[in-house]
């Protein structure tokens, strides 16, 4: 391993880290665009806190819970709190066969961690109490995410079984989606959304903000997937760029046609969610697919979105930003797709994918449900009607997002 190659690899991993960080701005803008004007300060506050909490908790123990080292194939492990840079070359060129340094490993992974909470924050927006939500985030990102993450990326039992999840369709996105589902089930829908005479949508206050969010997320995804190669390997990283981009594009087209067919309308939020669906869908197998496969996977993900959004609405599961459809449903689809398309395709693999989806799904959903349930029956998780009507910005923050 030459110093030049090591440096090039590590540089790419750090650029990816920065790109993944920017996804948090993407989430912040997407979510604030999809909520009402009166809850924008609240959603921004949550996003600013989540990334901060996520990074610190990952520093305190998350990283060492997710990568405990020791015996592979386990269910749980912990390498002790905080970070300890291995001496000399062990922490540098030798740390990951010249892919990146110990510090890079930590910060790249840390940027991923907070994502799972951000996904939840969008789904429970406009009605959840700030304090209890932040408590949930601390527990979710410090305990739940690293444990299930360890099962695969930490060389745990799912990894041993052959479960494959390249960049986290399941480990990151579905995990966030399950948390979101538990949250909205216990919170109930926003007042006035599901009325006697049918669904009364509550339009987001700014489509430009939402669109900015989607473009930024796509941009950040180059680091999310591209960085998951864990080196700057020219062939692999460039393939991942191609599959990721084509899946996102196909997702837009898929959502375009289905929503036009379903609602006779050029539905911007659907197309935006379609892009995200395509990105989530390709994430599990971005390095295993041909361009053609990625187009199919993305296109199907895009088609899933409108159907899924309608499905959740039918069940009165109120998700202002569509996080469950994008991250949970498309995350599952993407994980399954690894068993259907690409290098690894095969029944055995498909079964392994299913095992991973189900086991992680059960663990995460139960964890999130129990935490939200406990909070609900103690401090309470929902703001009162008056505050919901007036808006959480005034209620929780005594200020408004806009002076316009």
């Amino acid at each position, binding site marked *: 391993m030459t110093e030049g190659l090591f440096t090039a690899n590590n540089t790419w991993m750090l650029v990816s880290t920065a790109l993944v960080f920017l996804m948090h701005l993407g989430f912040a803008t997407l979510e604030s665009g999809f909520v009402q004007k009166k809850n924008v300060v609240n959603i921004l506050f949550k996003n600013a806190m989540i990334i901060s909490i996520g990074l610190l908790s990952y520093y305190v123990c998350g990283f060492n819970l997710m990568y405990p080292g020791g015996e592979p194939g386990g269910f749980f492990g912990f390498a002790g709190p905080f970070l300890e840079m291995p001496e000399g070359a062990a922490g540098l060129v030798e740390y990951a066969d010249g892919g990146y340094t110990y510090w890079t490993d930590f910060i790249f992974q840390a940027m991923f961690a907070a994502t799972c909470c951000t996904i939840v924050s969008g789904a429970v927006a406009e009605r959840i109490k700030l304090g209890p939500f932040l408590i949930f985030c601390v527990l979710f990102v410090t305990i739940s995410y690293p444990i299930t993450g360890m099962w695969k990326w930490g060389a745990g039992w799912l990894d041993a079984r052959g479960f494959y999840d390249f960049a986290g369709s399941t480990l990151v996105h579905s995990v966030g989606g399950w948390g979101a589902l538990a949250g909205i089930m216990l919170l109930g829908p926003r007042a006035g959304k599901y009325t006697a005479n*049918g669904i009364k*949508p509550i*339009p987001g206050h700014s489509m430009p903000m939402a669109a900015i969010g989607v473009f930024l997320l796509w941009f950040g995804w180059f680091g999310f997937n591209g960085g998951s190669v864990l080196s700057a390997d020219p062939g692999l990283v460039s393939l991942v760029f191609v599959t990721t981009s084509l899946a996102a594009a196909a997702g837009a087209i898929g959502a375009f046609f289905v929503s036009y067919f379903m609602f006779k*309308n050029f539905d911007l939020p659907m197309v935006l969610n379609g892009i995200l669906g395509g990105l989530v869908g390709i994430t599990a197998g971005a390095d295993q697919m041909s361009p053609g496969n990625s187009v199919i996977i993305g296109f199907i993900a895009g088609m899933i979105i*409108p159907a899924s*959004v*309608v499905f959740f609405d039918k069940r009165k599961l109120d998700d202002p930003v569509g996080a469950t459809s994008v991250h949970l449903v498309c995350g599952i689809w993407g994980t399954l797709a690894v068993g259907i398309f690409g290098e690894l395709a095969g029944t055995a693999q498909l079964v392994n994918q299913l095992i991973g989806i189900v086991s992680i799904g059960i663990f995460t959903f139960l964890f999130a449900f129990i935490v939200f349930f406990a909070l609900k029956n103690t401090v309470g998780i929902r703001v009162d009607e008056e505050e919901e009507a007036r808006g959480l910005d005034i209620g929780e923050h005594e200020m408004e997002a806009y002076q316009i």
Partner: protein
Amino acid sequence: MKKIEAVIRLSQFDAIRDALAKIGVKFFTLSEVKGFGLETEQKVYRGSVYDPGYIARLQIDIVCNDNKVDEIVETIVSSGRTGKVGDGKITVYSIDSVTRVRTGETGADAL
């Protein structure tokens, strides 16, 4: 002194403004309102087709002398009409006085 308040279509404002100017009515106050009426507008959001119940409209307030009222109302009707439901309403009522802040003048001189 009378005050005329007309709730009109966004799309007709330019026509109405020009028509009023022709009859010498260049001064008025405009505000943005939401009209709940017979006319409704279908909207779609994230896959749900719904009726928000209102339509964005403009309200024009004109203070004028009694003798001008009919002419102004007719002008707004003729220039603001599309014939489709939702063209709007014009209300007229009497006011006790109008005062120009700049000069303190009242009545006709204030216009």
